């Protein structure tokens, strides 16, 4: 079995990189990443535990624990079962009426209904969050919908926009500039800093888009 790379980034942070192990697909590796994150959460040693694409970065409370974790992490990884993580499923009610819906349909010579069906069919996995609070990188977009990013990014993609950019789809939790194609909108708040649990979606969760209605 190949081992993950483990690096100390500083005296209080370390990176486990498993991105070179993904012969069986990035999702199966990512499931181990979520399980490892979950395992580390039970320990009280970390300020932050951040999954990214087939990697996990751990930020320690105390410098002194660095050596211990550098040594133990590969063994913990090898003993982790991918399904130790229990995912939450979210149904995202989506109005498929985005400004670029026609463009995406035309680009692929599909009907609008085809685009909606292809987009709302899969169960997506939340690989990790980043870019902005509550922004989830999703796995599972149908290849037929892969669409190159807009040549000119929009200065403002409105909060709640459901969009496609290259091989990915995502929901914008807040207004922000962006170059992805907007195909729809959801009213579900993804991130609210004033709430006790500010973020609806966690790494490892699953979600599906439920079409509400076409039109305005």
């Amino acid at each position: 079995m190949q081992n993950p790379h483990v690096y100390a980034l500083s005296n209080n942070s370390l990176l486990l990189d498993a991105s070179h192990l993904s012969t069986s697909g990035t999702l199966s590796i990512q499931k181990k990443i979520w399980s490892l994150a979950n395992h580390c959460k039970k320990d009280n040693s970390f300020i932050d535990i951040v999954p990214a694409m087939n990697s996990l970065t751990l930020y320690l409370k105390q410098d002194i624990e660095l050596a211990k974790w550098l040594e133990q992490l590969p063994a913990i990884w090898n003993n982790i079962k991918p399904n130790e993580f229990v995912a939450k499923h979210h149904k995202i009610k989506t109005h498929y009426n985005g400004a670029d819906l026609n463009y995406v349909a035309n680009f692929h010579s599909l009907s609008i209904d085809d685009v909606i069906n292809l987009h709302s069919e899969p169960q997506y996995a939340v690989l990790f969050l980043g870019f902005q609070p509550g922004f989830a990188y999703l796995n599972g977009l149908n290849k037929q919908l892969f669409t190159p990013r807009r040549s000119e990014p929009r200065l403002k993609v409105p909060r709640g926009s459901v969009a496609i950019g290259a091989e990915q789809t995502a929901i914008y939790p807040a207004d922000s500039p962006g170059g992805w194609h907007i195909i729809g909108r959801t009213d579900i708040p993804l991130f609210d800093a004033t709430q006790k649990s500010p973020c609806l979606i966690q790494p490892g969760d699953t979600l599906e888009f439920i079409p509400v209605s076409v039109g305005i």
Partner: protein
Amino acid sequence: MIKVIKSGPLLSIQDFGRNGYRHLGVSQSGSLDPYAQTIANCLLNNDKNAAVLEVTVGLCELAFECNTVIALFGADLNATLDEKPIYPGWTYNIKQKQVLKFSTGRAGLRAYIAVKGGIQSPVVMNSKATDLNAGFGGLNGKSLIAGDTIKITPYQSECTQCGALMPPKRKIVRVYPSPHAQLFSKQIINGFTQSSFKVSHNSNRMGVRLQSDNYSLTHSHSLPSLAVSPGSIQLPPNGEPIVLLNDAQTTGGYPLLGTVIEADLHQFAQYRPLDTIEFEYVTFKQALQAKQKLDGHLNQLKIALKSKR
């Protein structure tokens, strides 16, 4: 209360920032110079995480609507109190209606104002720091503008003036080894420590962008996204390194040249466009010793202040 008469380019409420939410894409935010914040708060006998005002460049004007004591720290932006010069590193008793003005400075970029008892603002996700990109924390999640009112608790007694020195500045920034050293050519790793970089005008609270005239660090590597944090040094394919700071996003796909050590990262609060920076790689032990030295500086200050009170 403090009334903002002029904000200058960027005036915001900050503390040490947010921890524990990076996996949700929430940036740290917080004072770019945490040591300046710490020392300013120590001088006032505040909690070291008490919220402060971060002044950028200067050109800022604040009117106090109550008595208090302040400590000024960080860059010397030629501050005056009722038109009389005051200096970073010192505390000043403030009377109601006095006006604190900043012009601009010859070196450094950011000044910190701590007030007795700290700036009062709601705690959002464990911090009072303003997340300027996501729009929460501080005062309504925004940078302060003319007309804003900043809440403070009036403090009537006067304090004996006290002062402290900033830790000495280093010319060469120390960096932890790169996790991607094997990916980069030797030429890039060597070039990074042999070049002298200029700070780009495109720098901000998210990161300091660097340019080099004499060495090309261009490459064509792209990586699966990995977590990044303040101090991470990204190298985009254009070969111009970015030292990420407190407002940076939490993940990125550029390979890393390394991480600026804790003891030197605060210096990035003060670099101005066209300033030059050089880097050297150090060992984990050296980084730890540097941090202990800086912490020692703070402890000495605390002991000195205690004996004075």
